């Protein structure tokens, strides 16, 4: 798929966002109980009701819950009667956003509700994520998510693109930035700690936690009516690389760069970038792939190092970027989401606010 359209596509914008406070555990809440307040909040911000939503799309993973079709229970929180037009991706909600964006571009809907949630606390997310690996050569070895990221980090160190102090600086800057983010799970200065899997230390790894996010999309003048300063989606694209780690150059992310190019990210500089980099080393890879210089504000929310509810963290990046546009803190922002081991799949969206008089 490509973000480039011929003819005159409709302008589509993110008009509202909401997210939960991300926490290590939410034992007292079922998934729908965790999600529902976020859905209500995002609808209240627009004054819309479920009946006004043309298309609903969600992202989550059954493997986090340990139950088949767990997303259907979460639908109870949407209010699915009278019957709604609905879809789901077994991926980060950023990919659900992509599906909704296409739906609006084609004119099949005028507004869309996109949400994502992840409860990592019931299981061991390091083990759960091994089940997304190729079942013949990798999954039988149970290489956990930190181990695979550590292989990438060492490749980065060997290539001279970073050293351990540089990784620690990414961790420190992210957690400092998160001090201003009331939703974040880890806020403020934290020690780098011991090696989890060398060369990655505790501070280089994301927290494990539970959380949810929702955004509302709308097209054209409807978006202007629903939001004082809509975050217009100027382009969005996603690309995938070979699954096998041994085939890829782990120090680079060509899929991110290509997605960014197709989303129009390089046409003009962005002022803000929300990068879905669960590990410090991955931010180094992404900055290089996206050619972000020091003039770009990266992850003012604290990023995935401050809160990483699996399956929601990518859509949260988009919501954080859109929120800055809504507030006038950004005129042109890049949002990135990833999925799969070592940045295998990457999505880039470019959001803009209309120029202010």
């Amino acid at each position, binding site marked *: 798929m490509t973000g480039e359209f011929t003819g005159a596509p409709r302008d589509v914008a993110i008009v509202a966002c909401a997210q939960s406070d991300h926490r290590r555990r939410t034992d007292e809440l079922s998934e729908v109980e965790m999600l529902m307040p976020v859905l209500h909040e995002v609808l209240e911000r627009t004054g819309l009701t479920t009946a006004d939503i043309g298309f609903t799309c969600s992202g989550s993973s059954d493997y986090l819950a340990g139950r088949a079709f767990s997303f259907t229970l979460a639908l109870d929180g949407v209010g699915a009667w009278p019957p709604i037009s609905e879809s789901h991706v077994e991926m980060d909600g950023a990919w659900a956003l992509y599906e909704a964006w296409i739906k609006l571009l084609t004119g099949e809907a005028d507004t869309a509700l996109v949400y994502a949630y992840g409860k990592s606390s019931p299981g061991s997310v*390091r083990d759960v994520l091994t089940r997304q690996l190729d079942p013949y050569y990798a999954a039988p070895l149970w290489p956990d998510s930190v181990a695979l990221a550590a292989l990438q980090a060492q490749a980065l160190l060997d290539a001279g693109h970073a050293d351990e102090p540089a990784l620690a600086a990414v961790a420190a800057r992210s957690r400092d930035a998160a001090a201003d983010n009331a939703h974040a799970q880890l806020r403020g200065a934290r020690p780098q700690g011991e090696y989890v899997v060398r060369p990655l230390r505790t501070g280089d790894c994301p927290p494990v936690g539970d959380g949810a996010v929702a955004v509302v999309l709308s097209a054209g003048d409807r978006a202007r009516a629903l939001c004082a300063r809509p975050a217009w989606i100027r382009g969005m694209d996603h690309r995938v690389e070979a699954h096998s780690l041994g085939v890829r150059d782990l120090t680079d992310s060509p899929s991110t760069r290509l997605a960014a190019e197709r989303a129009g990210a390089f046409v003009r500089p962005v002022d803000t970038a929300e990068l879905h980099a669960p590990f410090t080393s991955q931010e180094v890879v992404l900055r290089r792939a996206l050619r972000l210089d020091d003039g770009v504000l990266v992850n003012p929310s604290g990023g995935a190092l401050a809160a990483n509810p699996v399956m929601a963290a990518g859509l949260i990046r988009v919501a954080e970027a859109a929120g800055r546009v809504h507030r006038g803190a950004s005129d042109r922002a890049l949002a990135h989401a990833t999925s799969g081991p070592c940045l295998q799949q990457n999505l880039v969206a470019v959001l803009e606010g209309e120029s202010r008089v």
Partner: protein
Amino acid sequence: MSDVLSAPMVVEFPFTRSLGPVQSAFLTGLRARTVLGVRTTAGTVLVPPVEYDPETAAELRDLVEVAATGTVTTWAWNPAPRRGQPLDTPFAWVLVRLDGADTALLHALDAPGPDAVRTGLRVRVRWAAERTGAITDIACFEAYEGEPYGGEPTYRQAVPHSGEFTGDAVTGVVAPARLDYTYTPGRAQTAYLAALAERRAVGERCPRCRKVYVPPRGACPTCGVATTEQVEVGPRGTVTTFCVVNIKAKNLDIEVPYVYAHIALDGADLALHGRIGGIPYDQVRMGLRVEPVWTEDGRHPDHYRPTGEPDADYDTYKELL
């Protein structure tokens, strides 16, 4: 909230997967202590081999043999091995480019400590004593600085291979998957289960449509709002619809045929499921009035039996079908 229920939950099942021709040859080769790769149309040798070129998607069938020795291209020291991983003592995860290959294989390296590992380290395969045709036939890698290992051919060039070995080819793998969870049902279902422990049934009423949901899941699926008002329902109820089960379930000590029914407990706006007993299967009918039967230490009704009341009028439950 400390009174939230939780219980261990294990999800475990063997994934049985068939192999394509290249994967089959590779895993059959491992069983015979031989590492095969596949050559792409561009001439690159992929190890482990795949059936389609990751760059061009062209079909790949050109098998080659590579060495059981190679070079570490990146590594990560794992101080605390986890269940299922290749070694149970601290080890290094490694990507190894085997001699003759252009890509790297993921596996474990047995080493005394992180100081003994570096990118560029020469390593060789340590074969598993029992080999079945799986990636775990490579027990792990080990450092190798000296002479070739156990008479393995030492070549830097991949050489063509037929992919044929003595014995039946490996045509599938069984990948056991086990994940452990601690299940917590959330506020609404905890309240339901806690009431059941006292042999009571509670539902929750939607503040908007006023319907009472049993069991409550915390949200009204129609209105999409939280259900909060707890309502005692039952214990008696009405069969709204049913089916006759003729297949005996594994590990279930119930004689067939039996009746499985939707039962609308008195005061509930949603029927729940239950087995009907105490009446011949062919005499169960819509509208039958039933009540729960509890076993000695059961935490939910074992089944429902007729109360002896007259059948409920159709109009009283037609909305609950």
